[in-house]
């Protein structure tokens, strides 16, 4: 097993009287895909929003290890979680900059480095060479991801024109361009057809194997979850009900009860009732 990357301990999030996440603890590791699953309303997206600094949790700690240092995510503002701790995320309802080109989307993700290279625009205004070099490097990095997504040909077209599956993958590439330690994916396979879904799995596995990062995944599509994840955490009504390898989870009676309310699980297909309306 590799070193722990993210340690979530006793995470609790209440909205008024509703406890969306209740005393949740789990660990995600480097070079592993950790899946967070559970029925609708189980609190998965809320966990993501806490992790990425959009919500301030009511209680609990979230410690991220990066370069030998520890970051307490619950104490950081959203944009600092991304920039300093290196937690990148994608959104359930894809949030690309649709009016900007594919290349621009990937360059914006490298804002922090470029901003420093441009000396907060001063050096950039005069076109000094350190900035030009940094910009070239940023384009290189973007190019690498565009090549990988096989989208190089449309690099200069607006992102709004992409197909649904390509948008998903571009959003993942954009998150990767921030140079993250932990990549959080909120239902990446939602709305994809089987072919697109396979290409996505391929992409996620290759990210896991080629980059020293951890992946955290919310997913409904059990084919994706069971196919690629190394470790599964199951939530129900904000509480953790199971935690283990995919095979173990498939046979866990508590999980089966939570999903189906009956003893015979069928994890080959998507659970019957799962409209895409997600918990907040």
């Amino acid at each position, binding site marked *: 097993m590799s070193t722990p990357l993210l340690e979530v301990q006793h995470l609790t999030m209440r909205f008024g009287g509703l406890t969306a996440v209740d005393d949740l603890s789990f660990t995600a590791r480097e070079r592993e895909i950790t899946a967070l699953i559970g029925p609708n309303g189980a609190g998965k997206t809320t966990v993501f929003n806490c992790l990425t600094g959009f919500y301030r949790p009511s209680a609990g700690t979230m410690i991220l290890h990066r370069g030998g240092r520890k970051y307490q995510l619950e104490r950081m503002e959203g944009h600092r979680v991304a920039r300093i701790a290196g937690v990148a995320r994608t959104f359930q309802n894809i949030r690309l900059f649709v009016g900007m080109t594919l*290349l621009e989307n990937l360059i914006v993700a490298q804002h922090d480095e470029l901003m420093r290279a441009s000396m907060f625009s001063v050096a*950039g205004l005069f076109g000094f060479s350190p900035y030009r070099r940094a910009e070239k490097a940023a384009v290189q990095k973007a190019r690498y991801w565009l090549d990988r997504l096989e989208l190089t040909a449309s690099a200069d077209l607006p992102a709004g024109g992409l197909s649904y599956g390509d948008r998903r993958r571009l959003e993942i590439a954009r998150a990767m361009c921030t140079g993250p330690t932990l990549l959080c994916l909120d239902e990446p396979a939602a709305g994809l057809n089987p072919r697109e879904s396979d290409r996505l799995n391929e992409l996620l596995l290759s990210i896991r194997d080629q980059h020293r990062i951890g992946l955290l995944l919310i997913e409904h599509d059990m084919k994706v979850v069971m196919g690629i994840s190394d470790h599964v955490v199951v939530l129900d009504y904000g509480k953790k009900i199971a935690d283990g390898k995919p095979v173990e989870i498939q046979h866990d009676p508590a999980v089966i009860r939570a999903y189906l309310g009956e003893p015979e699980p069928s994890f080959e297909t998507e659970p019957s009732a799962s409209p895409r309306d997600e918990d907040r």
Partner: protein
Amino acid sequence: MTAEAGVAAPHRALPKSFAWGALVKDAAIGAAVALVLAVPLVGFRVVEINGDVTLTTRFTWVGIGVVSVFVGRLALGLWRGSRPAERKRSGALVAPLSRFGRRHATGVAWAGIGFAAILQFLPFTTRGTVDLATEILTYVMLGWGLNVVVGLAGLLDLGYVAFYAVGAYSFAITATTFGLSFWEALPIAGLLSALAGILLGFPVLRLRGDYLAIVTLGFGEIIHILLQNWTSLTGGPNGIGNIPRPGLFGLVFAASAPPGETTFHQFFGLDFSPSQRIDFLYYVVLALALIVNLFTLRLRRLPIGRAWEALREDEIACRALGINPTNVKLSAFAIGAMLGGFAGAFFATRQGFISPESFTFVESATILAIVVLGGMGSQMGVVLAAMVLVLLPELRFLAEYRMLIFGAAMVLIMIWRPGGLLSHRAPTILLHGARRP
């Protein structure tokens, strides 16, 4: 229904089942609403005769209005009905213009700059033309400045005139009390305006977009009230006069030189003419405008400019990418304010006199209209819109209706062509260079 279809048959362009009944009904409803709207405010006019307030009527106007709404509504319905559905919203008049502008953007820009540069020497150019051109360029500068805030960063600033005023007054005050020249005071005016932008922006930029709009509106009013009432600093309603004119490398534009200085016409051995100063001011604003243009175009291609546009598109995604939205907004606000300040300083030096009258909400609205009509984010669009907005009142019969037309145009543009007259967005960086895949 069949009878109506029969009526429609001679019009080849109309589909067979064209619903005349519905069309007439729609036009009639429109006319009825127009009647109710027009009766009180158009039909009656409050007048004062010998100190007595009373009413006069003008129901003919109401009649004309109602009939034109009926006819207009009918015509609109016919026009829509006769066009293929998918083409309904593609502004037929401006689309070719926009396409031309996009294809030949650089050519048009250079032609425009060339024309602006030789304007003075053209045979038909009079003193009035140069004055007008100077006014247009002042608005172009303001438009480009506000474009950074509204067009690029997507922040609706309804009090832009505040920064224009801060620029004008800080120039006027530093120049009249400390004796600084235009070129010395210009950067100070810009800096103070930027500072005002930061002071306002810092607390309010966390707010949602529409709250920001109203706060900036309030800020514009606060500045206006301060100018009116802080008499010791601003001269109150009397304003500030005797603001120095800009010189050219120490040469002054005047009939006779003040002690120890040289005038422009003496130095070059010309005869004095008041138009020399006007021509010079024109070149000053042209140069300033070109610098502003270069500056904003350059910024747009830098990380900060891309962050502005990204923020306009999706603030939440920006945060998830590690971009601090408040700082990015603040930079847009400060830079927009600074450019407004430069324009204000130029305005002050050109007029030689400023008073709160020049810095009202109407001014903010005019600048916003320039940006919105021109196409948010489009440099060329701003020039076009500024020309329309300054030249429109020159047609005497339209002068009165200027703001009425602006207001209506803002609504119509949002409905029919939300991108503005020239709405093309050029990418800030290309992977494949100029050649398109």
